[in-house]
Structure formats: C-alpha cells, structure tokens
C-alpha cells in the first residue's frame, strides 16, 4: 500500500482541526441551501393554500412512475455515496472508486429521467409562459403549480449537476490514490452535500407528485 500522510493546510494545528473546520463549513453551507430552497417551498405553501384544486390538477399532470423511480434512484445513490465515504475511511480504494462511479451513474440516470419528464411537459404545452395550454378550469393556477415545479426541480437538477461534476473530479482523484484513512475529508464533505440534495428531493417528491394521489386496492 502507498505510504500515506495526512495532508493538512499550514494554518491548521492538526488534521483534527482541519476535519472539524471542513465539516462545520459544509454544514453552514447546507444551512444556506435549506434557506435557498425554503423560499421556493414558502411560495408553494402560499399558493397551495390558495389554490388547492389547481395544485391537485397540476400534480396529476406529473409522471408519477418516473418520479417514483427517480426517488428510489436517489435514495440508492445516497447509500452508494455513504459506502464510498466508508471505503475512503477504510483504505478500500477499489471499492471507493466503484461506489463513486455508481453514485455518479445513478445521479446521471436521475438527470436523464428528469430530462424525459421535462420533454414530456414541453410536448404537452405544460411549460409556463406564452405557450402554456391547459384544458380545464383552473388554467392559471395549474400554470402556477407547473412554474413552481419547474423552478424547484430545476434548481434541484442544477444542484445534482454540480454534484455529479464534483463527484467526477473526486473520482479522478480517487483513482490517482489521493484518498485514504488519513485523507478522506473531501469525500465525506461531498457526501454531506449529496445527502442534502437527496433529502431535498425527499421533500420535493411528495409535495409535487403526491397531491391527492390514492392507491386503489382491488
């Protein structure tokens, strides 16, 4: 195994301080992300309260199957991400690379499915703006719902793209042998970010896809 040394920036006392600093920094950043999405959720709450029927109709226009598949994909990707972190912490380089690749793959599939969903919306003229068409009573309110849907999932998708990009960068570093049980901070930090993006989706999915959806049995 390659000789490993802790990589500590010169203005830190030791690696523990560096690790604590990185973790607190990432948590602070995630707090800002919560507030960022929070504004959109606030707008959602206000308008869902005002226009319940429009939101129900809008929700039923979304592709529940694809959305559910995406939810499962993201949850699994959080698992593979956690496994990647664990692999880095335990000097398991091959597993680290494998789990990073899996996470990236799952993230990319998520984005692909999202793309398919968006394309469907375009095809049905369910895109906010001058070409919006909805055959039903609450056209304006459905447009509001769809606008918030695009804004929120679009913002989420941007975060996913950034995440996939950063993961790819770290994948390259991992292949080069950069991470080990003394230097795994970056993997853990991006793991935190990835879990956040996953949790955001866990809120987005029911709020947008599951309004008044009932499972009929038999």
């Amino acid at each position: 195994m390659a000789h490993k040394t802790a990589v500590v920036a010169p203005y830190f006392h030791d690696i523990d301080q560096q690790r604590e600093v990185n973790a607190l920094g990432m948590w602070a950043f995630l707090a800002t992300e919560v507030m960022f999405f929070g504004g959109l959720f606030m707008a959602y709450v206000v308008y869902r309260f005002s226009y319940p029927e429009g939101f129900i109709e809008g929700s039923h226009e979304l592709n529940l199957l694809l959305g559910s598949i995406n939810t499962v994909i993201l949850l699994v990707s959080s698992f593979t991400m956690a496994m990647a972190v664990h692999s880095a912490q335990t000097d398991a380089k091959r597993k680290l690379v494998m789990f990073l690749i899996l996470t990236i793959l799952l993230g990319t599939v998520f984005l692909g499915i999202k793309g398919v969903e968006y394309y469907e919306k375009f095809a049905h003229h369910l895109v906010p703006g001058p070409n919006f068409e909805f055959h039903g009573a609450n056209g304006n309110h459905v447009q509001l719902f769809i606008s918030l849907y695009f804004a929120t999932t679009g913002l989420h998708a941007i975060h996913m793209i950034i995440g996939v990009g950063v993961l790819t960068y770290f994948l390259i570093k991992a292949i080069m042998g950069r991470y080990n049980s003394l230097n795994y901070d970056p993997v853990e930090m991006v793991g935190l970010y990835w879990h956040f993006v996953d949790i955001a989706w866990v809120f987005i999915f029911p709020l947008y896809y599951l309004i008044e959806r009932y499972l009929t049995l038999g």
Partner: protein
Amino acid sequence: MDNFSFFPEQASTMAARIDSIYFTLVALSILFATLIAVFLVYFGIRYRRSAKTDRSNILYESMALEFGWSFIPFLMAMGIFGWSAFVYYDINRPPDDALEIYVIGKQWMWQIQHPLGKSEINELHVPINQPVKLIMTSQDVIHSFYIPAFRLKQDVLPGRYTTLWFQATQPGEYHLFCAEYCGTDHSQMIGKVVAMGQQEYERWLSGNVASESMVDAGKRLFNDNGCSSCHLASGTGIGPALEGVFGSEVQLEGGGTVLADEAYLRESILDPQAKVVAGHQPVMPSYQGVISEGGVLQLVAYIKSLSNTQ
C-alpha cells in the same frame, strides 16, 4: 412661505390620535437622547486623560443596571405599542355606516367614483363629520393612497380591494399623494382631497351633468353582458339569484362557505371557477379582460344594492 410647522393640519379624527402618539415619542426621544448626551459629555469631560480624578474601583458589570435599563425602556416600549395598537386597530376597522367611495389607481392617476354617479380624476370630494370608506383597487402596479392631513395611507393593489376609512373634521383642501413608487410619473400622481360641509357636499354631488349612479351603471352592465340571463331573480336560472347575496354566507360546491363581500363578488366575475356555489355547475365564463376594474366596481355596487344590508 406661511406658517412653518412640524406637522400638517389635523383634518381627520385619526390625525389628533396619531399626533399624540407621535409627540409622546418625540418627548421620550428627547428625554433619552438628552440623557445619553449629558452622560457622554459629562463623562467625556470629567474623565478626559488630562483630568486628575478618582478612577479607582471601576465597575465592569452590574446585573442590576442591565436589568434596570432594559426593563424600564421595555415597559415604555410596551406602553407605546399598546397605545398604538388600539389606534392601528381602529384605523383598520371602518364603521358599518360609512359612505363608500370607489377608487381606482393606475399609472399615473387616481379615478374616483362616487356611488351616485359622480366621478373625478385626482380629486376626492368628501363631506366632513361623516365616516367615509374608500374601496380601492389598482389597474396595474401597487400604488398607495396617502392624505397627510388625515395621517392615513393605504396601499392600492392590483387584483384585490383594499379599504381606507376616515372622518374628515374640517373643510379644506388637502394634499393627495401616491405613496408607493410606481414608475415614471410616480411623483405626479398627486391631487387633492376637498372636504366640505354636508350641505355643500350634497350641492356638489348634484351639480353638473347628472351622470349614472354606480348602481344604475352596474345594472346596465349586468344586462348588457348577459348576466341577467343566468342569474334569474327567481333562483331557477343556471346561476344563483343575487338578491340578498352580498353580506351573506355562501355555501360552496365541495363543502365550505365564504362570506360574500366585495372581494368575493369581484372574484366571481373575473375568476368564476375559483369558488362555485353549491348546487351549481362550473359553467360561468370569466369576464377578465371583458369588463374593466371600473365596470367591476359598478357591478359590485349594483349587486350590493340587491341586498337589504348596505
């Protein structure tokens, strides 16, 4: 330049109440500011570097002092809050018997519509010693109807009605300003409020060309736009009868009720699918873009006249 003063004349019942709070705050502010200034100057001189004076036994903290100078201002603050809260509440609760006048704000002018037909641009004639309630909406952006002499203003919003009520106390002409930035000619969206004695106001109302009252105009619109063909007074039409509706609780399709106020009437005209009356089909077309805000106000006045309540 005539009388230099620190406040406009008091021309409404609210003005004196608001001024009282204001002057109390001025007095309290002068008190505290002077207190701080006196201590700053006194300490600043007594303890300047070149002064030979006792500097031993310095105090670094005192729970008693912290509590004292927190609690006493807090009590004063709560006093001011409470007093202002009562006045603010009254400002926002128009009396039931107020004379209603309709206002439409648009870039960059005020259209005022008196119930009996008189309309004005950038001028509002009102009687003194009688509560007046303005029902206002905007045709475009947010404006604000501000009468400094009455000490009152209220933002005027598109898509909604807001109200402002007052009781003028002395005849005269007072500034009317738009107080919410609304674009290029915001500072020219001004006019005047003319308060006059009761008799003078009656005379003014009936003067000039006798134009349609709001109610008559609304009735005309009601017939011309096909409303009367569905909303039969007998109640057997496609739409519900509108007699007695204003001010009542309306049962909605799908459960729930709503108070039939001006906002409900306006929404029913412009977005009829939003709330469908129980037992009726959602087939009423929307009149958004067909009837202007002014026309909507006239229809609202007409429908209100079909109720026994004012």
